[in-house]
């Protein structure tokens, strides 16, 4: 064993008081898990929300009666579904006042045939009028999507030979998109002309997605960008008048984003408040332990003084002990939270039913550094009172008669 040095003294003190040290480390670990884990989750939710906002090109979605909530879920949480109009909705809508751009989309929920029971959302879009999907698809795939081909979302299982098997038919995959943290990751995009083929394949395997009679003209939603100066709600009213149908469903993607953001902010706010309370409580515990150990260690500090320690050395000793506790607790806390969160990001995203996108490595590293700094700072703050006492000029660390 190497001989003692002043630098090793704090570690010996921690090592020889394993229960006290472990208790302090556990408190710091819990605080760090809460801080770092909470920050990581909040960052991922924000990233997901921003990503979702970028993908929402439309101001208004016209959907069939009673399918509004399905359509919203499809946008936010990745619950796939099939719904469609049975009339020529595009023409009916087109006559309304205040429409800047309009395009139709078709949503079909399918079973992926190859393995397991994960559903895939098939989204048919009309390349001629589309203004929603193509802008961001082309940011990763430039080229026109041919009939019969698909573009796959990030979570889609593409086979070795570059195809995806749906309804017992291999669709060639033209490109696979980067993760967005939204339902679009579980979607495949096809040209609207491909939809009838999809429907016929589904009929062949006995799971007709849409009755054959509607296959050619099935439209699930009309996405509308309002003309300048028109409010989405006004346009919705105009559409109801123009089409003569009062039971249409309307979804306002901007509103969806805004309400998701609002509930997310509320969530983050509560979590932050909880964290602050939790941290204060933890700090009080650490504070109490340090203060009581200070009394317990009076004689020890007196011994250092007698041996010729300056007040600075005593303060340094306490500071290094508490910083070490903070660092150990921080490392354990960050490792534990990372292990619990990072590998499970897909599952967390699915369970939260909120847009959730794992943030990049740089942000994670920044959070790790912040978490460590937080842990060490917590340790240091807890020992401030003790350190101040020790640095007081009138030393009270004397050995009294009989002590």
């Amino acid at each position, binding site marked *: 064993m190497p001989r003692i040095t002043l630098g090793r003294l704090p570690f010996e003190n921690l090592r020889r008081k394993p229960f006290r040290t472990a208790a302090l480390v556990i408190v710091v670990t819990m605080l760090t898990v809460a801080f770092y884990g909470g920050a990581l989750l909040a960052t991922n939710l924000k990233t997901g929300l921003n990503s979702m906002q970028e993908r929402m090109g439309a101001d208004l979605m016209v959907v069939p009666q009673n399918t509004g909530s399905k359509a919203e879920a499809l946008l936010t949480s990745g619950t796939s579904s099939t719904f469609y109009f049975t009339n020529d909705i595009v023409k009916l809508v087109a006559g309304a006042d205040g429409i800047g751009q309009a395009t139709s989309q078709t949503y079909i929920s399918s079973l992926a045939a190859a*393995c397991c029971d994960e559903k895939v959302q098939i989204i048919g879009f009309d390349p001629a009028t589309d203004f929603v999907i193509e802008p961001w698809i082309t940011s990763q795939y430039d080229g026109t999507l041919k009939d019969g081909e698909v573009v796959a979302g990030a979570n889609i299982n593409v086979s070795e030979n570059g195809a995806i098997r749906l309804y017992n038919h291999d669709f060639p995959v033209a490109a696979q998109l980067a993760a967005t943290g939204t339902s679009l990751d579980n979607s495949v995009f096809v040209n609207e002309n491909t939809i009838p083929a999809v429907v016929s394949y589904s009929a062949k395997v006995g799971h007709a997605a849409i009755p054959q009679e509607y296959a050619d003209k099935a439209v699930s939603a009309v996405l509308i960008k309002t003309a300048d100066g028109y409010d989405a709600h006004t346009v919705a009213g105009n559409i109801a008048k123009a089409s003569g149908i009062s039971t249409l469903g309307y979804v306002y993607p901007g509103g969806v984003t805004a309400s998701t953001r609002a509930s997310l902010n509320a969530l983050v706010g509560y979590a932050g408040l909880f964290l602050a309370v939790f941290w204060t409580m933890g700090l009080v515990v650490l504070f109490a332990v340090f203060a009581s150990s200070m009394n317990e260690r009076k004689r020890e500090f007196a011994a250092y003084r007698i041996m010729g320690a300056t007040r600075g050395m005593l303060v340094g000793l306490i500071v290094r002990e508490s910083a070490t506790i903070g660092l150990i607790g921080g490392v354990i806390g960050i490792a534990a939270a990372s292990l619990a969160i990072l590998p499970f990001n897909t*599952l967390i995203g699915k369970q939260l039913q909120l847009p959730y996108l794992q943030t990049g490595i740089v942000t994670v590293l920044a959070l790790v550094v912040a978490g460590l700094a937080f842990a060490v700072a917590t340790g240091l703050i807890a020992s401030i009172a003790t350190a101040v006492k020790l640095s007081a000029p009138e030393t009270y660390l004397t050995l009294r008669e009989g002590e």
Partner: protein
Amino acid sequence: MTRKLFATLPAIVLGALIAIAPQTFAYVCKVEDGMKMACHYTAQAALGLGVVIALLGILGLFVAPQVRAGLNIAVILNAALVVAVPTVLIGVCKGAMMHCHMVTLPTLIVLGVLSVVLAAIAVWFDIRDTKTAR
């Protein structure tokens, strides 16, 4: 006594979890029409590895610290395999939303990493104590 439990209990518990998880809560894709996916074999391998790790832990209850250190080194190597099996050696289904990819894979990684770390700490303590005792 505390030391002995600290050096063996993690291997027993985590080994059992590694064996059980893919068969229960972290289930893998069902075998359909005799078509066996990669995750099926990953689950089989994890079952074997988990049982071995748990047995090494149980053996550790009855031996001297030096031997226990050796057993824990074996736990480390086996646990490294637990991580390697679903990632590089066998793998899981590719679809990110598939249960085996979303749950089984990270579960095995986490259990494997925890086993490696805890066994490494146990080895360190056991070897250090053996040295000091000499």
